[in-house]
């Protein structure tokens, strides 16, 4: 029964959503809304599982003085700091309101840290591009040329070095051709494959053929 009940529930919910997509009439809409609400409620409760697991593992690391245990201390301090400030030190306001302690932490610590992580992407793009655009063989050379045309074509420099060519052959136009035709064609082919894959996987799960996500073979 441990396996059958989830499979039956999955089947019922999956078929309901499938039918609701084509049948707007009652009770399909109400049923799908109810199932969506249930999912949201379960997810909201599940956040406790995650939070408690994070604290358990972090406390264990500190208690056992594992390697790099001081990172766990940072996690614990941050966790409780934001929790306590949000719950008890909002100065009579809602914790999300502008000017609350939580808002201060969000704006002055969380946001800059997030932005820093995102900013690292620029350096990683540079290092990944350097590796990817090496002309090791014919295909990689085509990739390198396409990348050069697209990147140069997106800047005034691209048109400046090809100003002597007819307008259609300038780098900005070639860049657009690559992006609008070759790139879009490739992307669409991938998207069609993905859509078919999602339908097929969904069908396998709804029919109970696919069970590996429940821990089965």
């Amino acid at each position, binding site marked *: 029964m441990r396996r059958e009940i989830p499979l039956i529930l999955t089947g019922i919910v999956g078929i309901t959503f499938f039918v609701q997509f084509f049948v707007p009439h009652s009770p399909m809409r109400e049923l799908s809304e109810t199932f969506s609400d249930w999912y949201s409620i379960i997810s909201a409760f599940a956040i406790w599982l995650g939070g408690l697991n994070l604290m358990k593992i972090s406390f264990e690391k500190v208690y056992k003085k594992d390697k790099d245990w001081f990172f766990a201390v940072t996690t614990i301090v941050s966790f409780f700091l934001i929790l306590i400030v949000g719950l008890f030190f909002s100065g009579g306001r809602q914790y999300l309101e502008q000017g609350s302690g939580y808002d201060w932490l969000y704006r002055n610590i969380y946001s800059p840290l997030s932005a820093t992580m995102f900013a690292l992407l620029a350096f*990683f793009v540079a290092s990944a591009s350097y590796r990817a655009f090496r002309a090791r063989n014919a295909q990689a050379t085509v990739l390198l040329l396409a990348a050069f045309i697209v990147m140069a074509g997106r800047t005034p420099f691209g048109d400046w070095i090809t100003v002597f060519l007819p307008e259609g052959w300038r780098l900005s136009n070639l860049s657009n051709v690559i992006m609008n035709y070759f790139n879009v064609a490739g992307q669409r082919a991938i998207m069609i494959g993905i859509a078919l894959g999602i339908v097929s996987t969904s069908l396998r799960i709804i029919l109970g053929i696919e069970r590996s996500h429940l821990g089965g073979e």
Partner: protein
Amino acid sequence: MGKKVALGICIIIILPLLIWLVYLKPGPSSVSYPPYDLTAISTPFDTAGSVTLNWFCLEGDNDSAATFPNYNILRSQAPEGPFEGIGSVGFEYPRATDISRQYRDTAVVAGFSYYYKISCDLQGETIESNIFGPISPVMAAEAAKVEVPVDKSDIMVFPPTQLRVFDTPNDAGGSITLEWKVSASDAAKSLLFNGYDIYRSTSAEGPFEKVGETTGGVSDVDRQVKTLRDGKDIINGQEYYYYVAAKWDGQEANSEIAGPAVSRQQWFHTGRGVSLVLLGILIGSILYFINRAKAGKELFIRKIAGLEAVDEAVGRATEMGRAIFYVPGIQDMNNMQTIAGLTILGRVAKLTAEYETKLEVPVSRSLVMVAAREIVKEAYLNAGRPDYYNDDIVYYLTDDQFGYAAGVDGLVIRKKPATVFYQGAFFAESLILAETGNSIGAIQIAGTAMPAQLPFFVAACDYTLIGEELFAASAYLSREPKLLGSLKGQDLGGKLIFLSLALIFVIIATIGAFSQNAVISDTIQRMFNVN
């Protein structure tokens, strides 16, 4: 040969069916008469009785066009004429809005009907407007019982016109859609125009109550109409009447009353007919091949390098005595990519249990943590090593995107795993994760169905499962006949038939483009316009 014929017949039958399904007549469009789109109303509040005309300026008639020629106002008492000039509007005349002009004809007699048109001699050519009429001036004393002097240069607000009300299509009832041609005073960025008020009643005689309001501007540029859905306390089966009031600089102008409209539930979403047929073909094909697979037919599946490399990657970690990291993306269990990613985790976990290699699964969603634990536990059990399992193999970091990326990066740098799997849904953090893994020399196998992230994974990882390969992983790794059958059905039923249809429609669309036949291109566009 027989199969090919059957396939051909199927397409021949399906194609007309598809066209029939989607050839739904669009609702009537609003009527506009470029370049002037002349309209006229009996001037409200005018006790003497007059007619106010509104038209849109010709190109070049703007605040700085002092030399722009005058508009000539022509009037007749019959639509066929003769029209005689009754006045002109020049540069100095006050503008109604930045894009429109108005003229008040006070030389009219209440009770008589009039027809109007505008003409302008521009660059040696006479440009004429549509003929608007008949319009009869009504004296305000009769109509509104108020006496407000109206000056010749006062700007009047024009009402919305051509109001249509109808049951909102393809819904579960409880909603009526209103559609109207916007007021002539509804100019973009106008500070004086204050939008529209919607009034509703259950009787044409009223009383009407205000049920909503909306801003100015058109909702549908092609049809030049404003659309609003009224879902406020609508009872299915009840008749409703509406009118719309345009608000402009303290004035209001009401449209005609439209109705009755009755809200009902629909049994079938007509805009999704094509999706149903295509989905039916795909599902039929998948089920057919599953049955074939169950009957013991050998099915050929091409090699997927990324999945072939799973054993090698786990073996490498074992030889090096280092851990394996498995990152299942940053989406929750309601995302199909996460589920597909977790199916591969089962296989990886089983191998790590057999080889006694350390596995770590940092996750960003609590539900994924629970599901992943179940999968890993079952895999260790199946490998005969339940003693080797503990809950801490799968652990939660944070729901936050970059917090999670920072956490995983830190772990990768400190623990230096030999192998890292990225299987699931990824966004901007994909390259941050993959480049960090690459920097420590780990063998990396990625898989995602996020097209924008695929180039990053291809650049930074050793193997990448591209889109559909991620969803095929479960069948490929397990070699379960039913799963392989579904994979074959997806490939043949889906790709072959869909691509054949795509090719046919590309040919039809190309013929339509060259023959400039709008019906063909419109029909194809409507067919694939998923609502």
